[in-house]
């Protein structure tokens, strides 16, 4: 029976990288890295608490980056998936990457394939959020949007929206994780607010939004219907492209929710 070591970290990406550093330093072939609040010790494993250290995290980051840019992206995206037991798998992945140069493309390896597929799933949701964010114009002149993505994609979409909407202040708020991004025409900062329900696409109008906002939502809703070709209807394909979980924030889907 092999005993493994459990590292407990604070849940941040830098914390995770610090734990990876500790694992490498102790030359562990396997490391069970777990978030503080979810941690469960194995019966025979030893536990160590990791204190996030930016310097060490950076060393790990740069080390991987020197090996492969694809790996760096795959690691960060998979980490943001927040899937259970992702960290030990990532540890294994990083060990492989550091071991040989071209390994990030070895899709015949189960671990490599799994990480690259997880990264792909997160990437898909990032792309969907770039598509399905619907801004509503508030009376304060801020374009506001709620989202509830499966994965924590706000850090990944920040740049896209900053570049695209450079001349309008906007907020994108993740109701599931209770934090958001606020762009004030200069830079993007992280904010938290007290939002109980958020602003969906309900027929109920909110006093926070301009009247014109609802006129444009109506126009868009109408456009959505006019552009449909009835003799080609294909609802299955439709829901495949826009999964129902996104509908409640889409202004073109008002009646459906």
């Amino acid at each position, binding site marked *: 029976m092999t005993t493994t070591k459990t590292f407990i970290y604070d849940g941040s990406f830098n914390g995770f990288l610090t734990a990876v550093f500790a694992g490498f330093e102790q030359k562990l072939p396997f490391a069970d890295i777990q978030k503080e609040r979810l941690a469960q010790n194995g019966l025979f494993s030893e536990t160590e608490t990791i204190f996030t250290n930016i310097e060490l995290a950076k060393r790990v980051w740069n080390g991987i980056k020197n090996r492969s840019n694809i790996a760096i992206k795959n690691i960060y995206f998979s980490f943001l998936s927040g899937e259970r037991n992702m960290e030990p798998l990532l540890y294994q992945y990083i060990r492989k990457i550091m071991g040989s140069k*071209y*390994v990030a*493309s*070895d*899709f*015949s*390896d*189960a671990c490599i*394939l799994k990480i690259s597929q997880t990264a792909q799933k997160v990437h898909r949701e990032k*792309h969907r959020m*770039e*598509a*399905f*964010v*619907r*801004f*509503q*114009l508030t009376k304060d002149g801020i*374009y506001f*949007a709620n989202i509830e993505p499966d994965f924590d994609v706000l850090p990944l979409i920040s740049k*896209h929206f900053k*570049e*695209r*909407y*450079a*001349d*309008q202040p906007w907020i994108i708020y993740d109701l599931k994780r209770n934090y958001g991004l606020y762009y004030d*025409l200069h830079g993007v900062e992280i904010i938290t607010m007290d939002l109980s329900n958020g602003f969906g696409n309900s027929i109920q109008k909110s006093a926070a939004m301009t009247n014109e906002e609802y*006129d*444009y939502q*109506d*126009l*868009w809703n*109408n*456009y*959505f219907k*006019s*552009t*449909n*070709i*009835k*003799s*080609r*209807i*294909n*609802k*299955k*394909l*439709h829901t*495949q*492209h*826009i999964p129902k979980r996104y509908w409640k924030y*889409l*202004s*073109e889907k008002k009646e459906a929710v």
Partner: protein
Amino acid sequence: MDFNRIKEKLNILADAAKYDVSCSSSGSNRKNTNKGLGNASNGICHSYSEDGRCISLLKILLTNHCIYDCAYCVTRKSNDIKRAAFKIQEVVDLTINFYRRNYIEGLFLSSGIFKDPDYTMERLIAVAKKLRLEENFNGYIHLKSIPGASDELMYEAGLYADRLSVNIEIPTVSGLKLLAPDKKHEDFAKPMLKVKNEIIRFKEERKLLKSTPKYAPAGQSTQMIVGATGESDKDVMYSATHFYKNFHMKRVYYSGYVPVSNDSRLPSIGTQVPMLRENRLYQTDWLLRFYGFSVQELLNAEYPNLDMDVDPKLSWALRNLQHFPVDVNKAEMSVLARIPGVGMTSVHKIMKARKFRKLDWDHLKKMGVALNRAKYFILCDSRHWERRDLDPQRIKGLILSTSYGKYRPQYSNQLSLFN
């Protein structure tokens, strides 16, 4: 802004524009400059209509008044429908406000022809010019070129638009004569040729002078209606190849004819849209552009039409069994790309993965290869391959019995008992 009036116009003019297939917003490279609004380099589909097609651009006509009477077109002069026209500023406001809310990637503006081609083209250009110069808008703009528009206007259009397109509509010259007697084949070709030449010229100048403005950076595209004039798949794809080659088209779209007119020259209203055929044509188009096939291999005098029950690559492979089986651990990339059930993504994965170890069935399956089709055509690191000497008919039968295509109900011979 009178929202009720705008709503009415939008309904009419979006409804009339929806038969234009193109909604692509990729292939450009316009950046957000001077803290303006938007960029066009991503190609995002923001929504999908209930017919399953992507909505990426606000696709509308400037007007559905038209001096022509093309039989296949809803907007034709003789059709008794409500007519409307947008003011230039109205289109600009709609585009900007939709864009700011992240509904769209930009504008697709087409038009019925009022008065004459140049008069109409000038107004389309005015919208694009206003968006770019007054609103500092960097989102995607696709302008429809009006057949017969002058060279000067085509030149100007390319300065503001990301993509230009003229719909050829009918794949054969004789079909065009029959259904659009007012239009001449040369009227389509002339603006295409002008745009092609300008794109080449601007590219050359850009090599010398970095500050050369962009000219139609996403290139040009065209569209053909299929199933309206009894043309063969060979006619359609040979015509498409002609446009790819001679006009440097970025895309050719195929639009299964949606009956919109009671005209004895056309399929009657209520005839089913040939969606499966459309799908097969797109698959063929992909094989030509990305898989290294030549059009003569797929369609020729002996096979003028595509096989409806299997995809064109599989159909080709069944006719050319002498090229198989292919060893996935040894074959060149171009050979891998010809295996049925193996897409380009899998080809790249195979090329990379086989550097590390020999690939077996399990590896291929996990990478996403469609083994139900591929297994009859490949060898891999396993003693278990399909050794039986099967003839094409038998292979086709085995594949069809294990697959369930999305269009199957449309061509199944089996009658459904409870429908």
